[in-house]
């Protein structure tokens, strides 16, 4: 294991201690296992809570702050948080206008957030709305399956819903825009290496340097298909073709994320973005805004994921609104 850790089973708590020290604008409650905006709860403002397994940083803890999340509940590495955590976060950010749970579509996250929402409503009388993010086109969507995974769209949902909540919009409106962003976003990822969960101590799968996994998620799991490792052109084209097949892009104004999975240098992420930008131009797609970097990671996995959101003028306006979090910041 090539890791900077003390105790493999305390890595999340140790990281939260570092996060607390590094960001005085966050309130980190190690006991409850939650990260909260220092100024929460804000009376009359809808609270935004997200969370999931750790190992995807900066998602979610790095997106807590003005214009984005009010709280995050980090679970153990790649393991959803537990209802107690989610409930504590929900109670901490409720300013009387209700709380939106932003949940990536993994059975564990969905179930734990569902139980927490039940507790919040039943025991604490907090109004909770839930949006489930499921943007990954590598997985077939069907009512008979667990459905698509939530990946890169989560960042878009948190930013855009966060901007609307900051303006004082009511819970239904914030939930509606969150769902709209999710519905308008598709993602596809590729892995060139596995990663190692500290507590497990060995890579999540084996992959020869000459191979790659197409259609991965963000939990170090293998993808839908293993193929010969391809060039940047092949990787990006595979991702964008899959996205475009699911949600035709031609003629759209888009927001594009080229996301490093954790172990791919930024240099290569820019190579990938260069290819993506040409592909999109060639296919009649306008890129209104873009983001290149490791935003939704899978520990030190090598690879990248591409997310494309078909914007509306209102979504663009909300994307551009000021945001001040550890990992995403502009306008203040």
């Amino acid at each position, binding site marked *: 294991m090539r890791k900077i850790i003390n105790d493999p089973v305390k890595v999340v708590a140790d990281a939260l201690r570092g996060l607390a020290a590094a960001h005085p604008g966050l309130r980190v409650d190690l006991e409850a296992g939650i990260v909260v905006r220092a100024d929460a709860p804000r009376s009359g403002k809808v609270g935004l809570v997200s969370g999931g397994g750790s190992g995807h940083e900066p998602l979610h803890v790095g997106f807590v702050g003005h214009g984005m999340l009010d709280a995050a509940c980090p679970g153990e590495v790649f*393991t959803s948080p537990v209802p107690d955590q989610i409930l504590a976060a929900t109670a901490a950010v409720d300013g009387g206008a209700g709380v939106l749970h932003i949940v990536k579509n*993994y059975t564990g996250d969905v*179930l734990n957030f569902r139980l927490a929402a039940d507790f919040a409503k039943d025991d604490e009388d907090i109004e909770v709305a839930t949006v489930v993010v499921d943007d990954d086109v590598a997985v077939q969507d069907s009512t008979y399956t667990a459905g698509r*995974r939530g990946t890169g769209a989560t960042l878009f949902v948190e930013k855009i819903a966060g901007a609307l909540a900051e303006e004082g919009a009511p819970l239904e409106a914030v939930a509606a825009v969150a769902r709209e962003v999710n519905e308008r976003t598709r993602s596809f990822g590729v892995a060139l290496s596995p990663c190692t969960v500290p507590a497990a101590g060995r890579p999540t799968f084996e992959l020869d340097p000459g191979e790659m996994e197409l259609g991965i998620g963000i939990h170090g*799991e293998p993808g*839908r298909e293993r193929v010969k490792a391809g060039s940047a052109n092949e990787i990006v084209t595979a991702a964008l073709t899959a996205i475009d097949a699911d949600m035709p892009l031609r003629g759209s104004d888009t927001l594009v994320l080229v996301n490093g999975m954790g172990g791919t240098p930024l240099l290569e992420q820019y190579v990938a973005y260069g290819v993506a930008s040409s592909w999109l131009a060639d296919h009649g797609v306008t890129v209104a805004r873009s983001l290149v970097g490791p935003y939704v990671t899978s520990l030190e996995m090598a690879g990248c994921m591409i997310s494309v959101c078909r914007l509306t003028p209102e979504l663009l306006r909300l994307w551009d609104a000021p945001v001040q979090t550890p990992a995403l910041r502009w306008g203040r």
Partner: protein
Amino acid sequence: MNASDFAAWIRRAAELVTADAERLTALDAAIGDGDHGLNLARGFGAAVTALDGLPAGTTPGKVLIGAGRAIVSKTGGASGPLYGTALRRAGKTLGDAAEPDAAALGTALRAALDGVRELGGAGEGDKTMVDALAAAVTAYETAVDGGAGLPAAARAAATGAAEGAEATVPMVARKGRASYLGPRSAGHLDPGAASTVLLLRALADVTGGEG
């Protein structure tokens, strides 16, 4: 079975999942995210701690509800809410009974299965813990219907769970993380089904049922 037998069941289950944590995690690494053993060791560890806090003279129902709550609170992942809900449902079904008989335990086990089904939405054949649990409950009920006592029925349930788990190997997953792999999920034992076998084996162990 009285309250301390139920507590012994939970303790034994904690022992078994902890001893087998590496294997469960390895099964999960193959078609999931490689944390199932870690999750259950943490969750059942918390359940054992919760049992220590129960007052003397508690009921079997309260034992299961307390263990279930702790598992929901500490496990995380998909298995935490599912197993936690299973135990809580079973506990609620037992009501105030001080020493449920074989039939009462059967009703509780079926309630546990229903709880898992409702919360997770999986049916048999979806390659989840439901395959093992459903087979276990059916085997238990068949044994009781055939006149078996609680120990023998528990052993039948453990055997049924093992068969149900084994049957998940060729299945293509339709629920949980393994479903993301599509056809690549076939050929692997479902980790949640494997842990369900341990939970039923723990029941057989503490009731001393012969196979």
